[in-house]
């Protein structure tokens, strides 16, 4: 018996099912997008790709609190296969009662690693002791204009300082939520001497050099320091920053791929991409009890109509198949509406900088895998509930 032509479902009675599916899908989408967005943003914070390698302090509990000898920049930078090197002092600070991150850099080196386009003003120079350039998002958040003076309070040391805005830039990365200052300003705010930085980033040619060969070089440097360069023209860093060579223990220094290192920080707290996806799926499944209840109500409210069709010869199996065919599209459309609603909500919050994690805007991207997951989960849940229902 073919039941397709019988339109026995009343739309008003499906409302509860549609509502709960929309909201459960919204909840899943918001959770998965924000958690994965944060994960992606954090792991890409110091650079994406296998060619970005870091020298960092292995004993620090966060990426912002360690220190390594700055002179390794020159030593490792001279290795064959190391294309660019950038020593950086990352300083957590407070300005205008809000948390921000300042990054002390050697402008020339840093800009070889991160492409910055100037939206207003000029780029930073190493000699700009009283200036900073700010990322687009940071400028929007604090309503900063060129020439504004900004009072910065250090978090790690007992320091405050005033800096003038020299430029506003855009990088399409986490840098847009930060301010860039000359390396020595970062060192003041971090509280390290001129011989140390938070980390050193390198861009390498993977065919010529690897993190392990860099580590071997660093280990060699720790046991037998190479002689200091004598004569010749000094690079800008040496002309302006009075650093001295310091001895260090190889146990304190690590060399790792930037993304891998950030992942390892997250791993310490059991946070992996897979774990976040599982959490999101669990959240959906926990809200699925209401979806099942809503489906049962739809069936209960149509007991009369189902009874009539059963009495004129429709078997339970045929009925279930027909109900599934009629309700599944509704469910999938509801779920898609939930995804759209979540995307719209997240886009609004992102545009208005409502959501910040570690003072950086979370970039939400709902990937195809997440969307497919929610649609598959909804289809399975609806199918199982209908097929297992006891039609009277």
């Amino acid at each position: 018996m073919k039941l397709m032509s019988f339109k026995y479902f009343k739309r008003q009675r499906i409302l509860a099912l549609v509502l709960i599916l929309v909201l459960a899908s919204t909840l899943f989408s918001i959770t998965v997008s924000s958690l994965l967005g944060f994960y992606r943003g954090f792991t890409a914070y110091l650079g994406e790709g296998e060619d970005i390698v870091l020298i960092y302090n292995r004993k620090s509990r966060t990426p912002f609190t360690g220190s390594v000898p700055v002179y390794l920049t020159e030593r490792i930078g001279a290795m064959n296969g190391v294309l660019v090197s950038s020593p950086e002092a990352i300083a957590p600070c407070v300005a205008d009662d809000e948390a921000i991150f300042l990054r002390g850099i050697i402008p020339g080196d840093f800009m070889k690693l991160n492409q910055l386009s100037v939206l207003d003003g000029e780029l930073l120079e190493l000699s700009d002791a009283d200036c900073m350039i700010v990322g687009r998002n940071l400028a929007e958040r604090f309503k900063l204009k060129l020439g504004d003076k900004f009072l910065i309070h250090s978090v790690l040391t007992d320091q405050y300082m005033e800096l003038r805005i020299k430029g506003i830039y855009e990088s399409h990365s986490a840098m847009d939520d930060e301010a860039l200052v000359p390396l020595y300003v970062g060192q003041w705010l971090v509280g390290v001497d001129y011989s140390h930085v938070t980390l050193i980033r390198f861009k390498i040619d993977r065919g010529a050099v690897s993190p392990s060969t860099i580590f071997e070089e660093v280990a060699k440097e720790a046991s037998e320091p190479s002689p200091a360069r004598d004569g010749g023209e000094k690079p800008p860093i040496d002309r302006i920053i009075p650093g001295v060579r310091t001895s260090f223990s190889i146990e304190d220094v690590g060399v790792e791929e930037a993304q891998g290192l950030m992942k390892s920080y997250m791993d310490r707290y059991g946070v992996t991409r897979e774990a976040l996806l599982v959490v999101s799926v669990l959240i959906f499944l926990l809200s699925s009890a209401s979806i099942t209840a809503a489906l049962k109500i739809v069936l209960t409210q149509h007991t009369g109509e189902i009874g009539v069709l059963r009495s004129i010869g429709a078997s339970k199996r045929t009925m279930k198949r027909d109900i599934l065919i009629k309700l599944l599209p509704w469910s999938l459309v509801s779920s898609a509406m939930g995804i759209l609603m979540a995307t719209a909500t997240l886009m609004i919050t992102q545009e208005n900088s409502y959501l910040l994690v570690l003072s950086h805007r979370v970039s939400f991207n709902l990937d195809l895998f997440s969307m497919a997951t929610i649609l598959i989960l909804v289809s399975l849940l609806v199918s199982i509930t209908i097929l297992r229902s006891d039609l009277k």
Partner: protein
Amino acid sequence: MTPLAMKMLFRRGGTAGSALSVALIVAILTSMNAGVNYINLQAQELGTLVNIGETYIIISQNSTSVSDSRIDVSLANQLTRSIDRYVEYSLPQKILSATIITKSGNRTLYVRGVEDPENFFKLGRAYVNGSIAKGEAEANVGEIVARILAIDLGDEVRLTVNNNAVKFKVVGIFKTLTQLDGEIIVSMKATMQLTKDNNKLSLIEFAIKDKVDGEEAINIITELLPRDLKVVKAQQLRDFIQNMNQQTLTFMSLWSVTIYAVAAVASYIIATRLIAESRDEMTMIRALGAKKRMLFTLVLIYTTATALLGSILGIALGTVGTQTASTILRWIWPSVNITPFLEAEQALQTILLTLASSTLGCLYPALRSARTRYMEQPL
């Protein structure tokens, strides 16, 4: 009749399932809250690893920078005397942005005028190459400035502020590993000459004595200040951590709105299910003389009671769930040490908000049930 009717409705088969559906939603929120509490506690613990300084500055209330701050010299002198017993030192300073002209070029930088440069450098633990400026025509240059502008000891530099130019002899180059290394330090009188203003300072920097209760001293000092001045702590670790935690809480708030919306729809479903599956009971209650308002009340009480039961169960499930998950994680990866926890006020807040959203969710079905003419339905 209400207790009897309630008993009848609660004894239905679906009550446990309805409470469980709310419980599972609340469990999601509880476990997330417990996890976030742990993360926030971690941030606070990291903060304890940092040494906290006791330096404060007094600047004008409306200034967002130190160079724009203005404090009357007479008031500053009076304040310095008043706070003397609480502070280790107090240093009135005048900071201005000036153009420096040297043999190698010009640039803009900060010039800081201090009353007693010797005491200033001593407190700042500065290493000075040369001597400390004594007169109005002598200056000490920070090491970074000296390197940028290739300034040597004995060089003459000219400082200009708004067409007022003053010549200085560089008598010392200092290193403090602070922002001072990027500045020029001169006497207070010299900065007054540069600005042609003898009445205004920029700030008073001070540090609380070791033996004094810092918080109490700051409260007393704040009370001593006129309305147009404020005390600001130099190092703001606590504010930073609070701000970081606030960012997480803002995210949680947005996320919780969705959870409570799901809870409201779950209650809508519970109420609709009750009405759909208890037609006979409702008809009987109406037949026994119950008014429409009573049916509305019954649906409302049933749904909120189920939500209350569900939220308590959900809090228990969420807390136990996160504890179990963290224990399992510790077994699998011993390096992962997560101890989520829930605070009592969070539990109470969750219960109250779940009840509020449940009440909202069940209003429409409850109203609809009150309007239904059950008498016309065959028993």
